[in-house]
């Protein structure tokens, strides 16, 4: 939900769901991320843009990777960063999300980056009237993880179109395959929305037990057979599959899952030459991806981490930063294009 100006001029804009981004919103974020990436190549990796603004990382779930990515992004924009981990805090003593939010608001948070185990918690935070700050969803339950989708799209555009050639462009006509535990994946949900918005064609691949009932309404195809899809993919995104899932009968054994849906060197060879392998991490090597694939040049997992900082810088910058250069201009540009 990137709220357009005029909706309520006093309310901040938020990033809750990738589905709320227009094509132009998304391209603007990717273009801005490209500029941010160039900052990262400088000897001094810091911009003064968010000096004096406070970003709170409110993490109700352990996620060191995502938290430090947001932390690095905010710090490179010169924002003050407060890390609030729910573990060991008053939250574990029964304090509600509402009271935690009120506390952070009282401390002057301009943006709250929230990771929460409950789907919809960031939406509640943004819409319940508890706080006025901008809210950025850093992953909620099995709902969405929009900045992950943005950094994935950024990585795809860089690799498949080019860092410079990609500016101003989307992913029109690219064929993206997402493989793994779709049912429990917020990464898959955000990616399906965003990639569709950017003109890509998405195919989900998983055993039928790990595809949600209701998926037929999603703007994508679903296949149960990885080998059929691989030759027609420009990017193959492997999702982590937790070993515990087999205890709930989602699949019989780890080995059977790996045989049918894991990506090994032999399968990778069936992908088009230009195609890339992606993984949002953390990887379970030997389960959904073999070491051979994970360590190959075609795998962008490490690159995605670096791109995550640039993309999150872009999101924070556009939500909090310039008044004229921020996201409202994306909406304004949409108007002009009509």
């Amino acid at each position, binding site marked *: 939900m990137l709220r357009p100006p005029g909706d309520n001029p006093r309310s901040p804009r938020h990033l809750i769901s990738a589905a709320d981004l227009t094509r132009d919103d998304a391209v603007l974020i990717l273009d801005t991320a490209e500029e941010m990436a160039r900052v990262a190549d400088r000897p001094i990796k810091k911009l003064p843009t968010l000096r004096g603004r406070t970003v709170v990382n409110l993490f109700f779930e352990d996620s060191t990777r995502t938290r430090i990515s947001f932390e690095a992004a905010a710090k490179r924009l010169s924002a003050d960063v407060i890390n609030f981990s729910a573990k060991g805090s008053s939250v574990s003593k029964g304090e509600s999300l509402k009271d935690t939010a009120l506390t952070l608001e009282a401390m002057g948070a301009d943006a709250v980056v929230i990771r929460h185990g409950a*789907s919809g918690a960031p939406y509640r935070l943004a819409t319940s009237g508890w706080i006025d700050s901008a809210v950025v969803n850093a992953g*909620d339950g099995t709902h969405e993880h929009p900045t992950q989708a943005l950094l994935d799209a950024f990585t795809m555009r860089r690799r498949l179109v080019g860092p410079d050639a990609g500016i101003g462009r989307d992913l029109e006509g690219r064929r993206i395959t997402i493989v793994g535990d779709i049912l429990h994946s917020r990464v898959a949900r955000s990616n399906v929305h965003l990639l569709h918005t950017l003109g890509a064609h998405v195919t989900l691949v998983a055993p039928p037990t790990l595809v949600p009932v*209701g998926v037929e309404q999603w703007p994508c195809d679903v296949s149960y057979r990885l080998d059929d899809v691989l030759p027609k993919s420009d990017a193959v995104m492997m999702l982590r599959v937790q070993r515990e899932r087999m205890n709930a009968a989602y699949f019989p054994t780890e080995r059977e899952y790996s045989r049918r849906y894991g990506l090994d060197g032999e399968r990778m060879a069936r992908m088009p030459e230009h195609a890339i392998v992606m993984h949002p991490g953390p990887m379970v090597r030997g389960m959904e991806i073999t070491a051979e694939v994970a360590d190959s040049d075609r795998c962008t997992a490490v690159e995605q981490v670096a791109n995550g900082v640039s993309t999150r810088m872009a999101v924070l910058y556009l939500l909090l930063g310039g008044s004229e250069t921020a996201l409202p201009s994306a909406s304004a540009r949409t108007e002009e294009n009509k």
Partner: protein
Amino acid sequence: MSKILIRGAKVLGGEPQDVLIDGETITRTGTGIEAGDATVIEAAGQILLPGLVDLHTHLREPGREDSETVLTGTKAAAVGGFTAVHAMANTFPVADTAGVVEQVWRLGKESGYCDVQPIGAVTVGLEGKQLAELGAMHDSAAGVKVFSDDGKCVDDAVIMRRALEYVKAFDGVVAQHAQEPRLTEGAQMNEGIVSAELGLGGWPAVAEESIIARDVLLAAHVGSRVHICHLSTAGSVEIVRWAKSKGWNVTAEVTPHHLLLTDELVRTYNPVYKVNPPLRTEADVMALREALADGTIDCVATDHAPHPHEDKDCEWAAAAMGMVGLETALSVVQQTMVDTGLLDWAGVADRMSARPAAIGRLEGHGRPVSAGEPANLTLVDPAYRGAVDPAGFASRSRNTPYEGRELPGRVTHTFLRGRATVVDGKLA
């Protein structure tokens, strides 16, 4: 007790009539009845119904008096036009002994706003393991005839079978909360298109339908009667319709909210829409309305489920399930069933008074509006339109899904055995 003359009301929606109440009883109906020394209530344009009966009310006392008490709950009932409610057993302690059901029964007597008929738990502590003392609860002053583990399903087929058999001794009925527990682990909302998108754990229709299918077969097998609580899916309707076509003794209820609201509302992540069973799809809503109209579903029951504010002012997964419903039930039924032409007011009287009283074997309620009958009556102004304002609720809780929504109709008067509990829409 004084006399009351209700003048010019459309009895069950029919021609205007006068109804004279003397003491606890209706003494005359007809036209041009002289008022004499009776208090006159001008009721032109209003509908006179038998006092409404709710088969499914959570009064929360004992144990959760922060959300509702027998007193506040019965006040809410009176405002909603009810003269009798069945108090569900999932209190703290659970109403699984004669002592607890008698306590609730006594609190109901003391409240004076409507009759409270306690429901007894089927199993000890609602644990589904061991039958509660059903006979003792029946023999107690509370005279329990309806038994339910509502909130939990009696999922063990043997326990369910035995309960169905056992209550035959005193013409009792088991009211089943149909929810297959394994299929609904972690369930947060209806499983379908919306849950897939929102990433909330799904509560599939089959979890309800499979239990209903089993229980109608069990009831037929042992020759007992079973009542299905808050039936919520089109598939459940089909199963009940089939069971009734066999002549089996199966009854079912639907809640007002399942007649009006759909799972699309969950897109707001506002827990005020979180309820069990969950809001379903538009197709389910339409099937439920049709089933209520054709009698496949016997009655409307509110499943009035009060919760304190903090249990709803939070993220979806952490929120309690349930909605208050007593004070809005008739309006929702008017909107979904009467104003749509599916049911006339006589039909409403049947589905909200006569049928639930018959299922619960409740005496003195759900009777015709005629001379000699107890004066349990509800007067409704069907032309009224107004937005729901929870701040004005008589219930202690405010967790209504209808806040700000305009609903038709308003209960202007409620009479419990000739005594006005509600006058001009306000508690008397």
